[in-house]
């Protein structure tokens, strides 16, 4: 409840961090343009590679090429969004904890996890977000699926649950980092784990698919939004949204326990 009370302030803080990060990017225009192009190329590689694999093989069961293009559009959009919202969080936390600067967060009048997450904005995510939205929109129109009004709130619910779930995973990761200080390859493990959402959940074995729908509902990031736009509704969608929100609450509890074990660095 305390976290919810701080939410409006944290949103304002996030907006300010966005403004400052944009101002900083504008101070180095060349770097900004090159960074945008590179991030677009980098984010676009995975969807293109998947598309090539898909078209050269039997593809994914239950998915046609135009449907897969829609999925790739959503994937590009989500990857852009998470970079834009939380792109700096991991590296920033590593630096703060290792250099003993994490203390600075604890003297701010907000929950430390909130300050950490709201400072993660990275403008580089803008290009893939826009490109993903365009690709998905074009694919949707070309597929000729009928648009229904309820698609919009459902997509919004997935986006919010997805942000909550990703924030929860970041909080867990950062919480562990606060205690162990050196994360080594745990960061890679984090990236690999979330990359399970780069593929339609339906291709995984049933048990794994159930985990990604109900327990760690990675499906809310790309798979369920794509399914929604394909008008393929599933009762698990609601459960996934609830699980995403629950993950945030659980992560917040664990974060608080881990934070109590923070020992700071030498003076």
């Amino acid at each position: 409840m305390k976290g919810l009370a701080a939410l409006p302030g944290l949103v304002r803080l996030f907006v300010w961090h966005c403004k400052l990060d944009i101002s900083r990017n504008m101070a180095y225009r060349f770097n900004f343009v090159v960074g945008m192009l590179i991030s677009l190329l980098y984010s676009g590689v995975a969807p293109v590679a998947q598309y090539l694999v898909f078209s050269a093989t039997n593809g994914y069961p239950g998915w046609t090429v135009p449907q897969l293009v829609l999925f790739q559009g959503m994937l590009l959009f989500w990857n852009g969004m998470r970079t834009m919202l939380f792109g700096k969080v991991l590296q920033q936390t590593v630096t703060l904890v290792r250099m003993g600067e994490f203390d600075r967060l604890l003297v701010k009048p907000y929950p430390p996890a909130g300050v950490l997450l709201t400072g993660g904005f990275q403008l580089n995510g803008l290009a893939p977000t826009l490109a993903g939205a365009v690709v998905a929109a074009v694919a949707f129109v070309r597929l000729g699926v009928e648009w229904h009004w309820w698609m919009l709130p459902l997509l919004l619910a997935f986006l919010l649950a997805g942000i909550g779930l990703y924030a929860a995973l970041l909080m867990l990761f950062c919480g562990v980092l606060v205690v162990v200080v050196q994360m080594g390859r745990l960061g890679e493990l984090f990236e690999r784990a979330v990359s399970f959402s780069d593929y339609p959940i339906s291709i995984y074995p049933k048990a794994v698919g159930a985990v990604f729908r109900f327990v760690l509902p990675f499906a809310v990031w790309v798979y369920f939004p794509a399914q929604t736009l394909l008008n393929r509704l599933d009762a698990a969608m609601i459960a996934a949204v609830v699980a995403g929100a629950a993950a945030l609450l659980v992560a917040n509890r664990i974060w608080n326990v881990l934070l109590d074990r923070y020992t700071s660095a030498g003076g």
Partner: protein
Amino acid sequence: MDEPMIRMRKVSKIYKVHHRTEGFWASLKSVFHREYKTVTAVDRIDLQVNRGEIRGLIGPNGAGKSTTIKILAGVLHPSSGEVQVMGMVPWKEREKYVRRLGVVFGQKSQLWWDLPAVDTFALQKEMYKIPTSAYRERLDYFSHLLGIGEVMQKPVRQLSLGERMKCELVCAMLHEPPLIFLDEPTIGLDVVSKESIRNFIKHVNRDKQTTFILTTHDLSDLEDLCEKVTIINKGVVVFDDTLDKLRAYFSNKKIVEIHFDRPVAKSDLDGFDVREFTPLAATIEFAMDETGDIRRELGRVLDRLPVRDINVGNIRIEEVIKQIYLT
């Protein structure tokens, strides 16, 4: 009447740390089996600071100053003891508490490196929900006091260390906290910048009755700013009183600087506690007897040595503090 701002009673902080042994095999072994030892960073510390004070908190490296400050700032929980600051327990009411707290870490910046400091100030305004009119008024006051009107419009990376520190101070004070922790605010600064920052602290303390806790290794900061000093050594408060009392800590000892008419041999000074020696000058420390009469000691010097000039003084404060650190 003195109103207590900070009260610490019997506060201890104990860490469990991995006991590393030397060598490659020991490192490998530590993967499977680790030995731990407990380290007492602060040991039953008592401290009281009154509202409107500028309190110096000093001690050698690793003495427990930072741990004390971190406990007071709500960053760390003590292992035992009681802490009350402005009527709050810092780590229990952290968010409410830090709204009334300012912190400057001398070696850590909270300014955005690529942007003008005024942009970070605007972020602070948002963070502490400072009304626009109050924000403008305070910014004018601070920028006038520190002379940073133009400085705060330049990207932080283009600022000198002194200019940056001034901006750090403003950043920590924009929400007008009644209590401010300054961790080595003058570290690495030239004399002019140091003086400017000290004057600023004095002004804010006087105008707004702000309480400052100052950790420093620069004793001129203490002499210029603090009436009272707390010395921590090996996790224990070893001195907690006025600077005058600290100066008089070794009042039974005097430092006598002597210049000679002609070169003397060091052996001529046998029987004296010689601190410095050249053939034409020497510095001697005298321990006076319980009557505090120095004449007998001076008589010995004047009788035995070709004195041209003599100067008797108290032990310098640096020396007093060094002695306390070494105790």
